[in-house]
């Protein structure tokens, strides 16, 4: 982390970084420490990032989107974190914002909206976060598309008061895509303007679990993966009503069949069909490097943050810096891997980055398997950067984590 701490700024390696006004913001809040569902949600997080977020980011790269990830889990998972992240969220007019919550939830008998309140690991009634409030807050920032998903129970909780807004003050986580798959998935996110709110169950219902690849996961996220695959492969039209309708059917069928329970996904899209065009040619100018601000003066205590487990401790400072570093490396790696740039320009950019960050050359980059956390490769950052800057096969790189001297990545290949 010592080396990374000196890089808490963005180096503009590409015109697309400096000129692109398009970002997809992922705000994921996942309860990985709960004694009952924590381990299930650990797996849910892995699946969400590997099978949905990673492939969507790779597809949206074609439309000029960069990625900003706010991955809140472990000890950072709290109602305060939700409020702070949303307060700090800056959104440009062509941005997409996806909010995804996995954890406990419920509703009051006096709630008048159909959407649940998210528990965020708290036992305090006044700190439950209404999904409706999140939806309104994100809509209020006027992104091009806002998708707000609450994967939690929507059953009645005795003693829970009705809420549509926050009630506390702030003081207080091996894939291969061909051109058609990329295009289908990108269309889902860039052909529509507006907003969607969704919860994984209707009033009075709980949200249950199923087995996915022989591991327990919440049914909604598992079915969302299948539907996303359906969109990519043309079985489901890249249309939000059809996509979420398919998820609803899958969840209902599987919960009925495996658990003999009713679970009905509800969603309300307010969308217009407004296809977005690809960014103009200037996005592919020769990469330039901006001057680099001075390194951080007061490094916080360093704590290694390895792959998440329910018991993993995280300090707020170190995990916030981790998110920034993840976003930085995501941006940089995806520029270097972008075969839309000329070969020699990518090589020059890679060499410039390594020359300016020579202290990082020996940091290890660990490649993870496509659908698992199996570590299938290890290279120095120097060799890794050299490889991705010379590859014509990569659709995208996803930084899965940073852990004191190691960067974990997944590579998505073009078919």
């Amino acid at each position: 982390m010592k080396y990374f701490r000196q890089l808490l700024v963005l180096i503009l390696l590409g015109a697309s970084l400096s000129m692109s006004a398009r970002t997809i913001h992922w705000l994921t809040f996942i309860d990985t420490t709960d004694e009952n569902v924590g381990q299930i949600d650990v797996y849910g997080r892995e699946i969400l990032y590997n099978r949905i977020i990673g492939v969507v980011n790779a597809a949206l790269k074609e439309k000029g989107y960069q990625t900003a990830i706010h991955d809140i889990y472990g000890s950072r998972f709290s109602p305060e974190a939700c409020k702070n992240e949303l307060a700090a969220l800056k959104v440009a007019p062509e941005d997409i914002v996806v909010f995804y919550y996995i954890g406990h939830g419920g509703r009051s008998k006096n709630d008048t909206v159909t959407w649940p309140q998210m528990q965020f690991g708290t036992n305090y009634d006044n700190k439950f976060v209404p999904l409706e409030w999140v939806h309104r807050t994100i809509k209020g920032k006027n992104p091009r598309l806002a998708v707000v998903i609450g994967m939690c129970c929507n059953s009645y909780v005795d003693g829970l008061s009705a809420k549509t807004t926050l009630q506390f003050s702030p003081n207080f986580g091996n894939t291969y895509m061909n051109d058609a798959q990329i295009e289908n998935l990108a269309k889902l996110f860039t052909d529509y303007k507006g907003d969607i709110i969704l919860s994984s169950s209707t009033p009075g219902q709980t949200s249950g679990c199923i087995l996915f690849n022989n591991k327990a996961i919440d049914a909604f996220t598992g079915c969302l993966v299948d539907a996303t695959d359906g969109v990519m492969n043309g079985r489901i039209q890249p249309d939000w009503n059809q996509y979420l309708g398919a998820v609803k059917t899958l969840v209902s069928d599987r919960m009925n069949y495996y658990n003999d329970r009713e679970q009905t996904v509800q969603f309300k899209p307010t969308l217009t069909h407004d296809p977005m065009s690809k960014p103009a040619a200037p996005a592919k100018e020769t990469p330039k490097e901006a001057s680099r601000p001075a390194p951080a003066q007061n490094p916080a205590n360093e704590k290694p943050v390895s792959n998440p487990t329910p018991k993993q401790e995280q300090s707020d400072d170190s995990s916030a810096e981790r998110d920034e570093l993840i976003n930085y490396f995501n941006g940089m790696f995806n520029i270097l891997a972008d075969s839309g740039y000329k070969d020699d320009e990518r090589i020059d950019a890679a060499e410039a980055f390594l020359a300016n960050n020579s202290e990082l050359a020996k940091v290890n980059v660990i490649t993870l398997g496509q659908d698992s956390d199996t570590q299938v490769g290890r290279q120095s950052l120097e060799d890794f950067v050299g490889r991705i800057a010379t590859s014509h096969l990569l659709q995208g790189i996803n930084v899965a984590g940073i852990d004191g001297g190691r960067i974990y990545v997944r590579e998505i290949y073009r078919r």
Partner: protein
Amino acid sequence: MKKIIYLLIFMIIGAADALAQIQDAETIRRRAAEMVGQMNDYITSMADKDKSLKTRQYYRKKALNLFIGKGEPYTIDGKRYKAVSMQTTSVNRPGVKTTPMGDYFTHLINLGYKDVDIKSTEIGQIKVSSLKRISDDTYECTCYIEQEFLGYGADGRPRYHDITKKSVQCFITVEQTVDEPQYIVQLGNVTATETRRL
């Protein structure tokens, strides 16, 4: 008969033990296919006369990183091996030619054709054998590809066109870390099995 039964039992237990050491064999086999795909990409790029010589020489340097020993002699389980090699064939001559990988890449960069087009099996289509244990911490598998070579003369007309079946040896070294094992996949020798003119 008893000896045969004991031998069979011993072999079954041995095979099961070997496989039990690898927790996610399918993921590792896919990774091997990805590494071979990257090798093919580098080969195509090194032969591409539209790219500058400097760029193609840079690709050569990066391509050698894919191989065990990075193109130099290497050691497995205390045993020393020569640098990995590439076998090439031609419909114009019998037999195979075996060249150290670094030299093969240099030759590829300096081919005498006006233009060269090399296409290989896509990553998703590469067939991979099962993993075989060759030492305490090393496994091996083989990836099977087809490579189509088309060389053009100064007049822009094809002068040579063939397709070759090749087998790519892959080594998987298991290294134990504090968290979990790391499986380091590196490429080995490439052998040519069959060539036909197109």
